[in-house]
Structures are given as C-alpha cells and as structure tokens.
C-alpha cells in the first residue's frame, strides 16, 4: 500500500516537473517573462471595480458569448432565400431546424439573442459613463474614437443579425435601413446631388427593398466574416490604448 502511494506521488511529482519545465520553456522562448513580471507588479485603481467602470468588461463578456454561440449557430444556418416550400425559405427552415431539432439549438439561439441585447445596453451605458467622467479627453481621444467605431459596429451587428432571421422583423429592419439610405436622396436642397450615393449604397447593402438572397448573403458575410474580423483588430487597438493610458480617474 505504502509502495503504491509512493509510486502515485512519484508520478504526480514527475508530471508536475514536466509541467513546470514546459511552462518555463514556453516563457523563455516567447519572451513573456517581462510581461508576466509587469503584470505581477501592476496595480489597479480602487475605483476599477465600481460597476460603472466594469461596463466595458461586461460588453466584452457579452461579445465573447456572442462569438461562441454565433460559431455554433453559423454551422447550421443557411443564408438562402430559395423556398423549399411555400413562403418558407431555406434560411427560415435552417433557423427552425436549429430551434426544434439541433440539440441545445434553442438554448444557444436564446443565449445569442440575450447576449446581443446585453451587449447593446452595456455599450450604450459604457459610452455614457465615459462621457460623464470626461474620459474622452487628452490623452484618451483615440481610445474614444475607436470606441465610437465599436458602437457603430455593434449596431451594424444588430441590424445584420436581424436581417438573417428572414422573418417579419428582418423585413422591417431592411425597410428601415433602405428608407435611411434613401433619406440621403430626399434631403432638402442638397438631396439631389447625393442621389448617386443613396442608389449605390442601397445596391451595395440591400440590392432590393425586400429581403432577398442578395440581402441575406451580404448580411451573412458582414455579420459573420467582415465585422468580426475588423472588430477584433479594432478591439485589440482599444485594449492596447487602455493599457497604455490606464483606467481614467473617478469624478
């Protein structure tokens, strides 16, 4: 029994030793040593855990949840308006399949939907907090500008996400977006000069005022490929600037 115990503890010790050596090897080869040391010495202001200063982090958590659930949903979603039966497109059918047939499909779709709402609400509150505490001032102007871009991207995510549902809601969103683009053409006095811009933008983003294949394919590409990639790059820039300038002070 004692021999067995010493064999087990020896195995654990050897595994621990392998882990320690692997960790040290990765740290020495990657040059992470300095970064780890800096993190160990780093101090954070006391107000950083104030709920109003956590809203950016909450937005990030929601974004990560959206990314994970989005990967799952995208593996079943079909961005096609080809009708398999009367008035039911492949896109709509694939959503019905996710909700009714795919294991945990409904739950994952529901998490995606709630996370999207949480993200929109928290990014708006985060923007208001940054405004209220004057955190956009020198030297954080660039952090603010990137944040505004992320705010616009969030609403683009929301809009394209609704379009992908291919139901009454997406029809409503596409019509609203189309009206907004045509709004450029209808601007008093100067509208005529921008008619080409509204026609071009409508053709690029919508193709036609009703949800069709062009709209679904474009929205799907924007929602799942273009925006996530650009957002990731911009987000890294946002984090870099926050790390460089630190958390802004309380009021």
């Amino acid at each position, binding site marked *: 029994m004692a021999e067995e115990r010493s064999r087990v503890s020896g195995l654990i010790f050897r595994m621990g030793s392998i882990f320690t050596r692997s960790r040290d090897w990765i740290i020495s080869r990657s040059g992470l040593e300095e970064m780890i040391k800096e993190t160990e010495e*780093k*101090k954070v202001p006391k107000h950083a855990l104030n709920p109003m200063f956590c809203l950016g982090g909450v937005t990030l958590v*929601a974004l990560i949840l959206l990314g994970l659930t989005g990967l799952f949903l995208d593996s079943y979603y079909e961005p096609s308006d080809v009708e398999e039966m009367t008035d039911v497109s492949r896109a709509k059918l694939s959503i019905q399949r996710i909700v009714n047939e795919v294991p945990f499909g409904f739950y994952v779709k529901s998490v995606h*939907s709630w996370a999207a709402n949480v993200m929109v609400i928290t990014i708006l509150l985060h923007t208001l907090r940054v405004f209220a505490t*004057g955190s956009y001032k020198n030297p954080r102007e660039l952090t603010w*500008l990137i944040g505004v871009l992320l705010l*616009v991207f969030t609403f683009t995510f929301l809009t394209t996400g609704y379009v992908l549902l291919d139901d009454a809601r997406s029809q409503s969103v596409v019509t609203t977006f189309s*009206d*907004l683009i045509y709004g450029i053409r*209808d601007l008093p006095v100067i509208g005529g000069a921008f008619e080409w811009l509204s026609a071009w933008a409508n053709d690029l983003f919508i193709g036609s005022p009703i949800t069709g294949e062009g709209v679904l394919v474009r929205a799907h590409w924007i929602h799942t490929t273009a925006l996530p990639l650009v957002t990731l790059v911009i987000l890294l820039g946002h984090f870099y600037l926050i790390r460089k300038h630190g958390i802004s002070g309380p009021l």
Partner: protein
Amino acid sequence: MIDEVEETSGNEAEDGRPFLPNHLVEELGVVFLVTGVILVLASLGRVEALRMPHIFFAGTLGMMRGVAPWFATIVLMVLVIFLVALPFLDKSEEPHPLKRKLFVLIILAVIAMWIAFTIMGF
C-alpha cells in the same frame, strides 16, 4: 498644431490594489456573474429577448414616421459626427459633468429626443 499629450503611465495607481491575484479574481467574478445572468435569462422558456418593434430600432422608426426618413438620416449622421468630434470640441481639462454644462445639455437633449421618438416608434 498637435496638442501636447498628457503624461500617463498606464499604471498610475501606485496606491491601488495588486492586479494579481486580487483584481483578477474580482474581474473573473464579474465575468461569471454576467455569463450566469445571460444563461439564466436564456433558459426562461421560449421567451424572445425583446418583442418587435425592437426597442433599439424604435427611435429611428419614430423619427421616420413622426417627421421624415431624411430627418432620421440627418440625425444619425450628425450624432455620429458629434461623437467623433467630441474630444476635439470639448478641450477643457475639467472631467466633472457639472462643469461641462453645454456638452452635458446636448447629450441630455439627445437622450430625451431619442426616448420621445422611441415611444413614437412603438
């Protein structure tokens, strides 16, 4: 003319709490809390997150119905331009909102207008 950048160390909290492990543990607590709330909300039966007309689009719809589509286009464009220009318009070093009355009034007016149009859009 480029403004002088204020010196910041990025780790300005000399009297703050250590990042490791104190702050990290508390941050992870927030992460689990938020994830938990979303997971619980999602498990509340077959309830859609929010019903149509969606609250986030209702403001735009309200402007379109109440005034005109071109008005909504202008408002959204001006709003984005204002947010982009804000750090260059508000050059004061004063962070307290009560000492930046003009900009606070503008933001409050925008919020009030948005709420009104959101109600109209429903």
